[in-house]
């Protein structure tokens, strides 16, 4: 890491020097040196992380003002010459070609030519032997790993940013608004800032921001970058522009070094999974490049306008705090006395409970003592008691799960499965933090591979990396007996969706890309949620199977009629021929039959016809029986939401009936 950051360091950056002198590092410096923690390991991953941070910020911003999110992401590839133009660098031809990495020495060329000749010979041989010639994959002129300069733009319809706050909100690391205890999308509170640092490191270009708050009649336009050493914003341009369309939201544009080729599929599946878990948002994703054929535009349509409530900020549970956190809470509290502090700054502590706790702490403590006067020893004592005492579990009210309805719609919208089942578990607790597990299981669908396809979400963002160790993957692969639910885990196209929301997601690994499998509470909640879904599916699958059987029965039976008729008739014939001399007695009941067969009155065709008749009749009886048994329910009912074609319409009245809800537009005299 050290080496990498050194090579990429821009002039003026001193953080990576290894001088012995004591030096203070700014947070920005720290992150620039440890990019991998925040997901900027390599150009490909950096592009992915930039996109996701911007998208997640955009969603948060729109949801915070209860606006249905519309997010537009554009990635534009910039060629080197265009880039140089951009920064005012003159394109220079290579003079000393041997200086460059891709220079081919004399020896290497000889080797290559020899190799190519050999290859050709081989090809000729293969062609001569009449075998199919396999097209040798031509080495692309540009290798896959080649990174390029990419301009990433993300536009949302969120709350925007106040004009004067923009430089500080974006140009200062760890200065976010997301530091309370609350279910949040962001993982570090770095968001766009990290992308900005990466932009500065890789291209040196500043970030371009346009923002407007709700009801503001101007837009703020700001071009800034970050002074990494001092962790302060460095503003190039900060101006107000006209905002005639009353737009609100933010548009952030960064130019970074990235790799589209290697991470294309990851970015697209990220967008797609985001669309699954956020079906109330509209996403537009564009990739623009100079060569037309590589351009792509994907629109993920809004499928519902039911938005989960914004997660509420909550207080810490006594069992989830450490010494430092208690100190911080004391520093920040507005309460005067210890008893008020305990009662109001923590969940699950009532007034009487607080008094009992204080009594337990010892004689030096009293309910009325000033909370700010607590010494370090006092705090240690409080901490110890928090660890030992028993508290009510925190409630899950502060959480905002996607909701079964939304998850279901999201799955249907993006995967178009044949069947889907969803389940929302009840709130549970791990180390003082409440969590809710929601799961969905789908069968069949578009672009789904046969086998288990696992989609993981944490606090409503998709997790794409390090799938192997994740609690969801492991549970689905090892602890669910799919056969029990009539699901063939290797043949069926199974989609497993698990979304975990919590005030603190117990991520594992530096990249925060997976949730460990060692937490029993979460593992069992995940298992039971998936099982619930499977249980629902089982009934559907059985019903479907029965319907299929009904259709197939006649065909299956008919298949065996000719063989059986022939076997029966041939046996009868053999028997009669063989019998001429001996005349066995079979009883009178069969005499007529024997007679008719020997006189060829009954032939194979007769038997076949009679058997077919019987099968037809049975089939009709069974069908009737099946219909009376299952009634009209051919498949379970599915909730349907019809999207409004025109966003600008407002609704006045909901007319509700047991079957559906009509929403009336305003402006029709209602």
């Amino acid at each position, binding site marked *: 890491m050290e080496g990498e950051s050194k090579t990429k360091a821009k002039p003026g950056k001193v953080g990576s020097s290894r001088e012995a002198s004591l030096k203070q590092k700014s947070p920005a410096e720290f992150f620039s040196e440890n990019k991998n923690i925040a997901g900027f390991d390599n150009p490909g991953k950096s592009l992915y992380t930039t996109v996701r941070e911007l998208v997640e910020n955009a969603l948060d911003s729109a949801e915070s003002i209860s606006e249905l999110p519309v997010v537009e992401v554009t990635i534009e590839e910039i060629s080197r010459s265009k880039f140089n133009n951009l920064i005012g660098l003159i394109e220079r031809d290579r003079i000393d070609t041997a200086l460059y990495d891709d220079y081919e020495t004399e020896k290497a060329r000889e080797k290559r030519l020899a190799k190519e000749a050999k290859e050709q010979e081989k090809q000729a041989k293969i062609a001569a032997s009449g075998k199919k010639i396999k097209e040798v994959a031509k080495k692309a002129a540009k290798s896959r790993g080649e990174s390029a300069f990419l301009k990433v733009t993300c536009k949302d319809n969120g709350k925007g940013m106040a004009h004067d706050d923009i430089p500080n909100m974006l140009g200062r690391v760890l200065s976010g608004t997301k530091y309370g205890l609350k279910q949040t999308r962001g993982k570090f509170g770095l968001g766009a800032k990290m992308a900005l640092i990466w932009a500065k490191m890789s291209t040196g270009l500043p970030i371009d921001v346009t923002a407007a708050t709700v009801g503001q009649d101007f837009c703020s336009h700001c071009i800034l970058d970050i002074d990494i050493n001092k962790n302060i914003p460095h503003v190039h341009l900060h101006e107000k522009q006209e905002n005639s369309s009353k737009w609100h939201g933010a548009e952030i544009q960064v130019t970074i070094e990235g790799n589209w080729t290697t991470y294309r599929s990851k970015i697209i599946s990220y967008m797609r999974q985001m669309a699954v878990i956020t079906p109330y948002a509209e996403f537009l994703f564009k990739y623009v490049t100079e060569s037309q054929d590589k351009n792509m535009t994907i629109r993920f349509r809004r499928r519902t306008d039911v938005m989960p409530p914004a997660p509420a900020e909550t207080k810490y549970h006594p069992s989830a705090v450490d010494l430092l956190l208690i100190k911080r809470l004391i520093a920040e509290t507005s309460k005067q006395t210890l008893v008020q502090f305990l009662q109001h700054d923590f969940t699950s502590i009532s007034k009487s409970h607080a008094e009992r706790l204080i009594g337990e702490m010892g004689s030096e403590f009293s309910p009325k003592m000033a909370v700010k006067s607590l010494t370090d020893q006092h705090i240690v004592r409080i901490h110890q008691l928090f660890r030992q005492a028993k508290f009510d579990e925190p409630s899950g009210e502060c959480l905002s799960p996607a909701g079964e309805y939304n998850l279901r719609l999201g799955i249907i919208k993006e995967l178009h499965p044949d069947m889907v089942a969803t389940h929302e578990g009840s709130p549970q607790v791990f180390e003082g933090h409440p969590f809710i597990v929601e799961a969905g299981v789908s069968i069949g669908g578009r672009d789904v591979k046969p086998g288990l396809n696992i989609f993981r979400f944490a606090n409503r963002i998709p997790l794409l990396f390090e799938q192997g160790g994740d609690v969801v993957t492991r549970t689905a692969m090892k602890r669910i007996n799919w056969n029990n639910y009539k699901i063939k885990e290797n043949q069926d196209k199974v989609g497993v969706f698990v979304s975990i929301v919590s005030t603190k997601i117990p991520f594992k690994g530096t990249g925060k890309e997976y949730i460990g499998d060692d937490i029993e509470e979460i593992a069992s909640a995940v298992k039971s949620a998936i099982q619930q879904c499977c249980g629902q599916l089982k009934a559907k699958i059985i019903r479907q199977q029965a319907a299929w*059987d009904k259709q*197939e*029965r006649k065909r*299956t*039976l008919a298949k*065996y009629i000719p*063989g*059986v008729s022939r*076997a*029966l008739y*041939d*046996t*009868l014939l*053999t*028997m009669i021929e*063989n019998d001429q001399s001996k005349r*066995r007695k*079979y009883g009178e*009941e*069969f005499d007529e*039959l*024997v007679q008719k*067969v020997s006189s060829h009155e*009954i032939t194979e065709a*007769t*038997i076949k016809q*009679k*058997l077919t*008749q*019987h*099968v037809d*009749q*049975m089939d009709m009886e069974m069908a009737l029986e099946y219909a009376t048994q299952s009634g009209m329910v051919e498949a379970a009912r599915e909730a349907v939401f019809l999207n409004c074609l025109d966003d600008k319409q407002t609704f006045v009245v909901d007319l509700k009936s047991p079957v559906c809800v009509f929403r009336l537009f305003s402006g029709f005299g209602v």
Partner: protein
Amino acid sequence: MATIRALCRAEQEAKVEPRSLADLNLPHAFKEVADLSSNSVVTEIEKCILAAAKSILAGHGFGFNVPSRSSANQIYVPEIDRIVLKDKSSVREFANSSSVRKTAITTRVLQLIHQLCIKQIHVTKRDLFYTDVKLFQDQGQSDAVLDDVSCMLGCTRSSLNVVASEKGVVVGRLIFTEDGDRIDCTKMGVGGKAIPPNIDKVGDMESDALFILLVEKDAAFMRLAEDRFYNRFPCVIVTAKGQPDVATRLFLRKMKMDLKLPVFGLVDSDPYGLKILSVYMSGSKNMSYDSYNLTTPDIKWLGVRPSDLNKYKIPEQCRLPMTDQDIKTGKDMLEEDFIKKDPKWYAELELMVKTKEKAEIQALSSFGFQYLSEVYLPMKLQEKDWI
């Protein structure tokens, strides 16, 4: 030798007790089959076919009444010491998507057997399968239906003129005729005589042996045959190379019934070896409908018994730890009536499960390759060490 002679004499003098089910007055009805002549089999098949044809022509479709061979329909009867089939049966309807396939196969098998019995020829199970591969799909299916047909018609599988390919081998002081040819099992080299799949053609058994030695494994059989063990101790040595097939079981029963010799079992000291002994003695679940003809009562367990491991100081490196599966099988067997009825057998199996050690017959080779034939067996026989 004197002891064995005494045992042999006792065996020959003992009266054969009646072992028929009918005499027992048991609360259940049972399904038993009997050897039928080809003619009666033909008649039975014709009855079935006529009934089916009549039912079809009357517009009722058709079906066969097939006795159930599931384990729920089987019972071990301690009085006669074998597994028998109860009389539960089900109708295999053609017009039912779950049973149509089996009904079609049954019809075809009936037709094929009808032909065999009329022509009086024998074929193997494999032959039967190949006559209509497309319908049968795999041999397991035609084999299963063959057993169903045996039950349905109430005859043994050999009466259907279908035999399994040869598996068992016999060597030693035995002379018998097979289809008129006189066979002397002392002159069969070290490989032994293959046990004929068609027991009907075996007859005129003569022997001056004092006992029959039943060996689980081919390797031990070879050792004994090569060392001409039957010349030192006049005996007949039989193996089925693992789980016994029908022919070997029929042959053993015939020997025991005709020659009235005691039978000793030499099997591995593991649950599987004991299982093999149980199949010889009380029959397998698969063939329980014909347990009367297939079982040989009163086999003595000579070795290798779990208690032998310490008694003969079999070295540690030759003992194997039992796998979880082995232990489970062992524990399950402790619950079976076949083991429970004899406290000595029960104690041996209990010891095996307790020590969690098993050993193969070959473990004895650690004392020398001929230890089995020159020390172990003679010592066992001299000490009357059988249970």
